[in-house]
């Protein structure tokens, strides 16, 4: 219990971030949101292509029932 006031004291000593300029805010939006979202989306598309559309016979045969069920054009 005695550690709580210490933590609070430390928290008060941490300086607050200065407000972001417009350019910095935009940069942060791109690095925190847009790039990770785009990369996740691309990764998703690669997976969907492999499981749903890749033509290699082995991949097709393995994923056959899944493709039919998902109504992906097959054969």
């Amino acid at each position, binding site marked *: 219990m005695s550690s709580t006031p210490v933590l609070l004291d430390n928290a008060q000593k941490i300086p607050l971030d200065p407000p972001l300029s417009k350019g910095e805010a935009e940069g942060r939006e791109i690095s925190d949101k847009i790039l990770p979202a785009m990369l*996740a*989306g691309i990764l998703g598309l690669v997976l969907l292509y492999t499981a749903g559309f890749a033509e290699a016979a082995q991949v097709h045969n393995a994923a056959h029932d*899944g493709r039919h069920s998902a109504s992906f*054009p097959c054969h």
Partner: protein
Amino acid sequence: MFNLTTFRELVIAALWTGLLAGLLLTAVQQIQVIPTLLQAEVYEEAAVVAKAENGHEHHDWQPENGWERTFFTAVANISLGVGFALLIGSVMCLRSRPSHWRTGLLWGMAGYLTFFVAPSLGLPPEVPGTEAVKLADRQSWWLITVLDTGFGLSLLAFAKTKTYKFFGTVLLVSPHLIGAPQPEVPGSAAPAELAQTFISAAFFANAIFWLAIGGLMGQFYKKDS
């Protein structure tokens, strides 16, 4: 700079979502989708044997019926689940709203409409042995329909002006006005009732799949802003 933490959170949430939704779909498929498909395959094989007199056919590897086949179907379902979950996660990340399983369900419904219902209106889920036009033509129509439906629904849901919403409606209906590529002589080795059963079974199984993907992704991918 690239925020690796955000990316990692997205991927981990999508992996869990895809795993659970894929396993759920595999279970649901056993009720009607797979039994119907296997029945249709008996007709398809009979038709193939009748056609090929000279048995010089080259056979690629395919999983043995039974557990092996179910295992690979589960792997395919999980891959599709993770892929779809990553797409939903991507739009959740871009929208500046906290995610929740209830908002996730809405995304799941949008995904179901975009990736399953809209293309299935023109190219219904097919049992093996159904006559169809060239694969590339169907894939193109499928892709255009999915893109149009996705953009169209986004405009209807998020656009502020009537013009954009009208444009969204045009995108939604245009692939169906143009029409999907259909064979000149439609037909199937399997009886029509079997094909019909497969269609309704697939509509049901995919609805469960998409609601699970949306709800789970909304639950697992928590973001603050």
